[in-house]
Structure formats: structure tokens, C-alpha cells
């Protein structure tokens, strides 16, 4: 941090001012002039929170994607299919047992198993052949999409939100003061907050596992140089399988989350594949903090865009990607 300020004083100043403005926008009561210019504070706060919580979902999908890429250098374009498959499994389990929590566990295990099979049956046979792996995963994603269409049809499925999560909660954020002097606090859907917290917990756990445990050390070593790691006697194939299972399982969990606050239908697989591609391109391929940063940026861009520039909202995401590719092609938080 201190080094960053020393090296780029101008940038640091801009960042500090931006953060200060943002904090003021979030906590201050907006003067009437500002409300007239850009709309009510409630809308702005909602858009910001929605962006961050949507970022949580994107992070869940993209972190698995980036983990697999970071270690194995393979771009798994069937990642979106894993997401959708997890969602369907979650739906089936939650309607069958009525338990929302259980649906996460089952979805994680089931999709992780698919990941293991994919790694053993497909990727292991074509290690190091990037183009072949890419083509095969595209093919697999099409096959999976059709299989799921066959089984689940074109219907929309929603994982039932448990009763204790339905409805809004009051947040300690002021949106306005009524003429009677009574403060108005922000109402926000509880389920989104819970899901966001869960993704933060998962993110932190992953960071800890990677940076504080022995297996994490092996994975990091594998990211840096997997040949040397293999030469030191580590059973690299086993590590690959584990990482693939974890990445796929995370996509499965994300599917249940997506099915809870959005919906599941054919086509969602490619949408989330695209989202995670954009997120990791912005954040930096192979970097977990990068995926988190990228996910929040893309989530915020989508939500703020949909409120303030609805016509061009779709373009904003890709503009950000283009900008990042032009200025810092390796991604914002990539190490190399």
C-alpha cells in the first residue's frame, strides 16, 4: 500500500478521493439538488448493494474457473454447464427433501464428482494440449446442455428460498429523512445478504487454504512450476483431481445460489461461462483475489448500468473488459 502511494502518487490521490466520495454517497443524507440530478438515494444504495451481492455470485462461479486455470492451464469451457447442473441438482434436492442447506451439500458433491470424472477421463488424456482441451470442452458443454434440456426441459426452475430468508431486512443506512424528522432506513432482501456473506466466507476460506495449509502450498507451487513440483515427488495428478473437484463443486454451489435468487433455464450455462470469462480476464487469470475484484467490478457495472444507463448497460461490462485488456492485458491482480 505504502509502496503503491510512493510509486504512483497521482493515482493514489484519485483512488482516495473516489473512495471518499463513495463513502459520502453511501452514508450522507443527499441534498435535494443531488437527488434531482441523479435520482433517489434509495435507488443508488440498492444498486450498489445489488452489484456487490451479484459480484458474490460471480465470484463463486469464477473462483473455480480461475483455480482450475491457474493450476492446470486448461480453460474449462464446460464450466457453465457445471454451474447449471449444480443448480438443477440443488432444485431436485430442495424440492425432494425441503432442505435448502442440504441442496448445497449435495450439489457440491455431485458436481465435484462430475469434475473428477472430467479430469480423469478427459483432461488427463490431453495434458498440455491447450487447443484440443478447449475444443473438447466446447463440445462437452454442448452435449451437457442438450442432455440437461432433455432431462429438465426448457422450463424455468427456482430453488425455493426457505421461509426465514424471504422478505427484506432493515439496514442501518439512512436513505432519507421524512418531513416529520423521522429517519428512513434502507430495506434490503435478506437472502441476498446471506448469500453474499456466504461467498465472502468461502472466498476467505479458500484464501486461507491456499496460503496457510500444506495442500495449499502444493497447489501454489504447482501454479508456479508443476514440472519441478512433480519432480519433488508430489503426486501431481492427485492434486489436479482435487483442485478440479473443488473448482467444479464451487460451480455447483454457485448454481444453487443462482437458482435461488435468479432462475435456472437452458442458456444460463453460457451466460455464466461468459460472466466468469469476463471476470477472470478483468481480475487476472489464475488469481483468487483477482476473481473477487473482477466479480465485484462486473457486478457493480451491471447493476449501476441497469439503473443509470439502461440502454447501454450490456455494453458497460465489455467496455471494462476491453479497457483492462488494453491497459493491463494480464488482468488487474495477475502476478505475471
Amino acid at each position, binding site marked *: 500500500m505504502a509502496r503503491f502511494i510512493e510509486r504512483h502518487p497521482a493515482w493514489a490521490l484519485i483512488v482516495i478521493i473516489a473512495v471518499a466520495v463513495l463513502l459520502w454517497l453511501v452514508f450522507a443524507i443527499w441534498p435535494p439538488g443531488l437527488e434531482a440530478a441523479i435520482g433517489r438515494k434509495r435507488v443508488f444504495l440498492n444498486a450498489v448493494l445489488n452489484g456487490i451481492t*451479484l459480484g458474490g455470485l460471480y465470484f463463486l462461479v469464477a473462483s473455480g474457473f480461475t483455480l482450475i486455470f491457474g493450476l492446470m492451464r486448461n480453460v474449462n469451457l464446460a464450466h457453465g454447464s457445471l454451474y447449471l447442473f449444480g443448480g438443477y441438482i440443488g432444485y431436485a434436492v430442495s424440492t425432494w427433501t425441503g432442505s435448502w442447506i442440504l441442496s448445497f451439500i449435495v450439489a457440491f458433491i455431485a458436481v465435484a464428482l462430475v469434475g473428477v470424472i472430467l479430469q480423469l477421463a478427459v483432461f488427463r488424456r490431453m495434458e498440455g494440449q491447450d487447443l484440443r482441451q478447449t475444443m473438447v470442452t466446447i463440445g462437452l458443454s454442448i452435449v451437457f446442455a442438450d442432455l440437461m434440456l432433455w432431462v429438465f426441459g*426448457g422450463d424455468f426452475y427456482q430453488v425455493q428460498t426457505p421461509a426465514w430468508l424471504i422478505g427484506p431486512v432493515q439496514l442501518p443506512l439512512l436513505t432519507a429523512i421524512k418531513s416529520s424528522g423521522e429517519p428512513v432506513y434502507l430495506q434490503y432482501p435478506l437472502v441476498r445478504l446471506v448469500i453474499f456473506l456466504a461467498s465472502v466466507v468461502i472466498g476467505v476460506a479458500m484464501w486461507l487454504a491456499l496460503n496457510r495449509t500444506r495442500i495449499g502450498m502444493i497447489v501454489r507451487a504447482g501454479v508456479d512450476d508443476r514440472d519441478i513440483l512433480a519432480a519433488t515427488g508430489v503426486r501431481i495428478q492427485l492434486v489436479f483431481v482435487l483442485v478440479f473437484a473443488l473448482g467444479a463443486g464451487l460451480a455447483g454451489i454457485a448454481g444453487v445460489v443462482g437458482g435461488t435468487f435468479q432462475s435456472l433455464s437452458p442458456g444460463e450455462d453460457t451466460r455464466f461461462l461468459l460472466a466468469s470469462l469476463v471476470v477472470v480476464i478483468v481480475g487476472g487469470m489464475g488469481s483468487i483475489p483477482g476473481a473477487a475484484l473482477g466479480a465485484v467490478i462486473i457486478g457493480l457495472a451491471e447493476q449501476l448500468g441497469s439503473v443509470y444507463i439502461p440502454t447501454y448497460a450490456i455494453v458497460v461490462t465489455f467496455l471494462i473488459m476491453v479497457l483492462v485488456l488494453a491497459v493491463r492485458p494480464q488482468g488487474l491482480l495477475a502476478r505475471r
Partner: protein
Amino acid sequence: MLKGNLGLIALSSLLLSGTAFAQEKIKVGVTATLEGTYTVLGEDGMRGHQTALNVLGKKIGDKELEFVVASTDATPDSAVRAVRKLIEQDKVQILLSPLSGDEGIAVKNFAKTHPELTFVNAASGAQETTYVDPAPNFFRYNMDGAQWQVGLGKYAYETKGYRKIATVGEDYSFIYTQVFGLVLEFCGAGGQVTNRQWVPLGTKDFASVIAALPDDVDAIYLGLGGADAVNFLNQYQQAGGKAHLMGGSIMIDQTILSSKGSAKNALVGTIAASGQADTWEDPNWQKFVKAYQDSFPESKRFPSPSLLATNYYGSTMALILALRQVNGDLSNNQAKLKDALAKIEIDAPNGKIKLDSNRQAIGTNFVTEVVDDGKGALFSKVVKVIPNVNQTLGYDPAVFAKIGLPSRTVPECKKY
């Protein structure tokens, strides 16, 4: 060598048997949105099409109809691509296409490049398709989005007492047309439309849109369809929304009312207008509902046909009846068929339909209210039936032309 000979023999016998047994076929290309946001709508449209074939049969005199289906995703380019493929690769002679508003405008324009073929609109409902520079070989047997809203504005203002409303709609031609019809009537009656929000087709996260809904209105009009509508309702429930709702024709429709989950319950009591009402007692409608239910197992269909099924049924029916009138004669650039299509009046399940000089349907419209049947299934209950709705909505054509074409901001909220 032997293998080659065998192949030759097999091939020639296939050709022989082909000429010996085949009846003359009439090839019809069908498109439906079998991918993307409107997948469910496309699937039910195809069910309506299949129901029509079950009821009417595929025989045209001594010829037989053959259908080739192509999938689109509600974007205009996907529709043109599908239609082009059907014409160039599958050599279809007649098209039953497309399903969605923007697709309709694109296919109508494309139809002009193939004046020798016949295009029967399957279900699309943008006003521009038949109102602006219509193609002489494009026929539409369903009403447009504005016609489908007739009666709703007055009912909301007079019976429900709504004075101020806001709208949320998908950002494309069909919903523009729907909002056009609503605003014209509601503002004509004295109401106010304070805010019109537009979201891209395929929006998944509506949370910010929901937050931006105004609270000082009597009702919120939803012009959404397919996955978008389900997502909106789900997130609306999570945000604790409680406003009165009004619905467009594909919002209050079995495609949404039969969706899984509890979010749809927010719609009970919602008023809407459409080219059909699920509980209409007309025997012709009941017969159609029965035929639809009998054509598919219960798990593979909705409890009652959606608007899309009804439209596909109607357009398939018009095509088959017209073909039978001319005995399948497609000579002279299908002139006889086109003539018959322009003149035919059909007894569609949702009322009598005839075409105007732009080959646009004049039909019956329904104001409805969503009810729970007591077992958790939702249906649209008929409140009012309005016969003979034409494309200018009863306005003098000169006055209607001055209003302008449906868009994000047209029409203005005033009395024309």
C-alpha cells in the same frame, strides 16, 4: 468393387421406392424460440401447432404437409438466419414464422426478398410488422400487442380506480406495442403514466430495477415474458414488494402462471388483457383446451394453453384451411393461396379472425384477472370480452397515424 455396387443398388432402390410411394409433399418451415429467454414460449407455441395438426390433419387433397422446424432465440438476426436456412437448405415453400416481435419485423422485411413464397406469421405481435410498409406475402392471424391491451386501460381507471401507474417492460418492439396500447387507453380515460422503465431482454437480476420502482403510484404495469418475468417476480417477492400489479399479454399467461415456485402468487388479483382468457366459456375455446390437453401428457404441457399455443394453433389452422380451399395449388408463385389467405375468415378458439387490407388480424380481445383455482394453479379469469378489435384500435386511421410508432416514449400520455 462389390461394396460400390451394393451401395449403388441400395441407392437406386431407395430412389425407386421414393418415386413409387411418395405423395406430393408441401413443405412448410416453422420457427419458434426454442432457445434463450423465451424457450418456454416457443415450446408451447409448438404444442399449439401440433394440436392444430392433430385436430385438422396434414392432408391437403392428395398432397401431404411436411413440416421442418428451426429454432430462434427472439433476436431478429436469429429469425432471419432460421428462415433463410429453411428456404435455402430445406427448400420449404411456405413459412410459419416467427414468434417474437423483433423477429416479426425482420422476417417481414425478409419476406419481400422472396415474393414468390408465402409467409404466415406464427405469433409475433409488434405493430410495425404489418402497419408500416407491409409485405404483400406476409399474413398475420393474431392481433398485435396494442390490440391485445384494448380494454385494460379503461378497466384499470374506471373499475379499479387506478389514477397513476408506472410501467416496466422489456426493451423491444412487442412490449413497446403493448405499452402503446395501454398508455393510449389509460391516459385517454384520464390516467397518468408517470414512469416507463425499460430493461434488456434476458435481464436476470432485477433487484435494482425493483428498487427504482416509484412508490407513489396506484399500480405497476409489467410488460415482461418468459424467464425475465419469472426472475422479476422471484426478486420482487424477496424484496417484499406489495404494489398492485397489472400485466401484459405474455406476463399474465400460462407460461408464467404455471412456473414452478411460489413467486407467481404475487400475481393473484392482477388485471391484464390478452388475446385469450383461460376460463372463457365459449364452446369453441373449451374444445381447443380439451384438444390441447389430450394431445400431450400432463407433465409435458401447461394446465391450459398459453397465448403462444393459441396463436400457433390459429395460424396453422388458417394456413391449412386456405391450402384446402385451393386444393394445395401452389402454381403461379402461390397466387391462389395468397388470395385465399387474404380472404379467409377463421373460427379460431379465441374468437373469429379476419384480415384487414394490410393482412393484419381483426379479432377479439379479453380483459382478465388472475385467480387461484383453489389447488394452487393460477388462471386468467375473463372479465370482459371485446369483439372486432382492429389495428387502429377504433381510432380514425388519420388520427392514429399522427400518434407515431410505438417506442420507449411514444405515445405521450394524453388524449388523442
